[in-house]
């Protein structure tokens, strides 16, 4: 047990050279007071070393693998996608040629919210922030000539995830891969979409039912595939502090776990395929402690609360990357430096996969050059800096171990608060969690504007800047028209009777309340479109009515 008393959040977050008074208390973003020096006594008082253990062993605080990066460095997986599937395929291959080891697919907004490219609502949005997908055909083009055993693919997709997972599996099957051995990940974390990012389609209950459908379906048919990547990431981007980020991720992961258990699956049948996505910007030591604490806490939850017996069920597998909210529009080159520190944080934290926001992202979709620069940032760490030599290099530091204990306590406290307020599903449905994180985002911006929270280029070391030279990513109207033409050709040439009957079956299964994944797989293989399948589900589930709160 800890003797640390958590004080209410104070405005002084982090020491700064602007504050000469060394006696002023310093807090990290999660509200934990930071001492000037740490000793064995501090570590003992925070709970000691009981939760530390060894890498690859319960409680996995030090990492989920015994050998970690010495055996295999983290997977490099830059978030990529724009225009139509041909454009995206070309960029995928460029990144792979430059040493990238995984793919992370960005979809355009129509695809993300389940509408087709020829829908009126898609005007001006086709292929703009990701690649346009209307049917299985688009997946076939996007992954053409990419070895799906060597390069694992992560789909950043949520509202329409059940459909896109089916498309990925169907595409792989068509190319001769055995889907029972296929690896890959879908983000598919709809609860966080209601909190931040906003690509919801259906009301909360059917939305989480669909997540459970995908987990159940994959457990039986594609057991190596990770159907969900639970994201604290976007909740942090929306205003949560680092301890809340991880705690909210865990209550969400528990909500999905409970739904799947209620269907009669054993926790060890699927827990090892749950993965996570967390953010890496902020205080280096707070971040490293967050990840170490989170691994121990998740292992404890899965083992003690859910009774898992397979150690692989207990490990917190994660992508630790991004850091968009830490980057600035001001002095954008400084983001290159920030990105390198964020990569260091991710590596010191034992991430399985890393992606970095590019320095020009406050301006535009990253250019080839800026994406390659992010890749090189990671490659320098791997090849030159000794980051792969030994596992969990910060272990045993009085500071890091003490902070790890304190961050874990703080996360448990946040999880208790959510339980006391009726659970995460209720909080999301009523909009209270959304209001809470948005209030914190406002408070933080006020602190940045007043200079209380130092930010280089914004409230210190500012410069009079010319508009920087940025290679703006153009919006290709031609690509959008091409995508619409392709969709219209598809509708004319496919077996429309098969489409109708598979869609009717999908409506029927949705109405019966059974797992809709087999029906979605059948519709996908008949080349039904994303919009058609979504509409079929909407006819039963309805659409989400956003509780407009701020």
């Amino acid at each position, binding site marked *: 047990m800890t003797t640390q008393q958590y004080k209410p959040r104070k405005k002084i977050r982090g020491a700064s050279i602007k504050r000469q008074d060394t006696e002023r208390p310093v807090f990290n973003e999660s509200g934990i007071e930071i001492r000037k020096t740490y000793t064995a006594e501090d570590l003992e008082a925070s709970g000691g070393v009981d939760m530390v253990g060894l890498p690859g062993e319960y409680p996995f605080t030090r990492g989920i693998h015994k050998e970690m990066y010495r055996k295999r460095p983290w997977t490099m997986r830059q978030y990529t996608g724009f225009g139509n599937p041909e454009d995206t395929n070309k960029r995928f291959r460029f990144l792979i040629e430059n040493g990238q080891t995984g793919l992370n697919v960005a979809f355009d907004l129509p695809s993300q919210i389940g509408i087709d490219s020829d829908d009126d609502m898609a005007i001006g949005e086709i292929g703009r922030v990701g690649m346009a997908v209307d049917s299985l055909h688009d997946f076939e083009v996007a992954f053409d000539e990419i070895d799906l055993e060597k390069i694992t693919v992560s789909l950043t997709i949520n509202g329409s995830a059940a459909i896109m997972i089916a498309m990925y599996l169907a595409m792989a099957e068509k190319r001769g891969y055995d889907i029972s051995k296929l690896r890959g990940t879908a983000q598919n974390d709809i609860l966080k979409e209601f909190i931040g990012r906003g690509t919801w389609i259906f009301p909360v209950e059917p939305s989480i039912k669909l997540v459970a459908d995908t987990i159940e379906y994959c457990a039986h048919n594609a057991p190596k595939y990770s159907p969900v990547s639970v994201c604290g990431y976007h909740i942090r981007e929306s205003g949560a502090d680092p301890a809340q980020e991880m705690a909210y991720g865990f209550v969400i992961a528990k909500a999905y776990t409970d739904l799947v258990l209620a269907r009669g699956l054993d926790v060890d049948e699927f827990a090892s395929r749950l993965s996570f996505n967390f953010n890496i910007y902020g205080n280096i030591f707070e971040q490293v402690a967050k990840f170490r604490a989170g691994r121990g806490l998740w292992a404890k939850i899965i083992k003690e609360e859910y009774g898992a017996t397979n150690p692989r069920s207990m490990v917190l597998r994660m992508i630790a990357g991004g850091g968009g909210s830490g980057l600035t529009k001001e002095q954008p080159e400084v983001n290159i430096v920030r990105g390198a520190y964020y990569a260091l944080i991710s590596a010191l934290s034992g991430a399985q996969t890393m992606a970095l926001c590019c320095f020009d992202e406050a301006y535009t979709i990253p250019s080839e050059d800026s994406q390659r620069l992010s890749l090189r940032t990671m490659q320098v760490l791997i090849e030159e800096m000794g980051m792969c030599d030994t596992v969990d290099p910060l272990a045993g530091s009085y500071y890091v171990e003490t902070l790890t204990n304190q961050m874990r306590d703080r996360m448990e406290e946040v999880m208790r608060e959510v339980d006391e307020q009726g659970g995460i599903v209720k909080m999301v449905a009523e909009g209270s969690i959304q209001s809470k994180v948005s209030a914190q985002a406002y408070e933080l911006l*006020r602190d940045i504007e007043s200079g209380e929270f130092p930010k280089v280029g914004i409230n210190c070391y500012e410069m009079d800047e010319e508009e920087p030279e940025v290679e703006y990513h153009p919006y290709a109207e031609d690509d959008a028209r091409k995508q619409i033409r392709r969709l219209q050709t598809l509708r004319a040439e496919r077996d429309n009777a098969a489409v109708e009957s598979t869609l009717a079956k999908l409506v029927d299964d949705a109405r019966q309340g059974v797992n809709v994944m087999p029906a979605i797989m059948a519709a996908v293989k008949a080349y039904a479109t994303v919009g058609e399948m979504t509409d079929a589900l909407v006819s039963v589930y309805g659409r989400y009515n956003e509780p*407009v709160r701020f």
Partner: protein
Amino acid sequence: MNSNTNRGRIRVLIAKPGLDGHDRGAKIVVRALIDAGFEVIYTGLRQPPEAVAQVAMEEDVDVIGLSSMAGSHVPYCKRLKELMVEKGLDDKLWMIGGVIPMPDQAALRDLGLDGIFPAGTRLEEIVEFINERVQ
């Protein structure tokens, strides 16, 4: 819709145009404008131009503010402009904030946007702009 209704104060509509769901910035601006004493109506996500024009008219707002993070603002504002003219809303103070690439800014000014506030703008700048322009 959410509004804090009180007659006599400057009324501001904040809308999220298009399909994008990144609303951190929009919500921050809503809070800042309320703190500055304005009446604020926030639409929530995914508002088509027709809805924004309709709400602006029904709520009799002085200011129409858009928060755009995903790049579709130029085609969106073209359509909204037509509707504003149609409904006699083109005398309203019209503002946009978010990720507004430099090449789009001229196009938006040509469409009649009075204020463009890219990410990084200080909140008080937005408040002052409204106070100066709306009498």
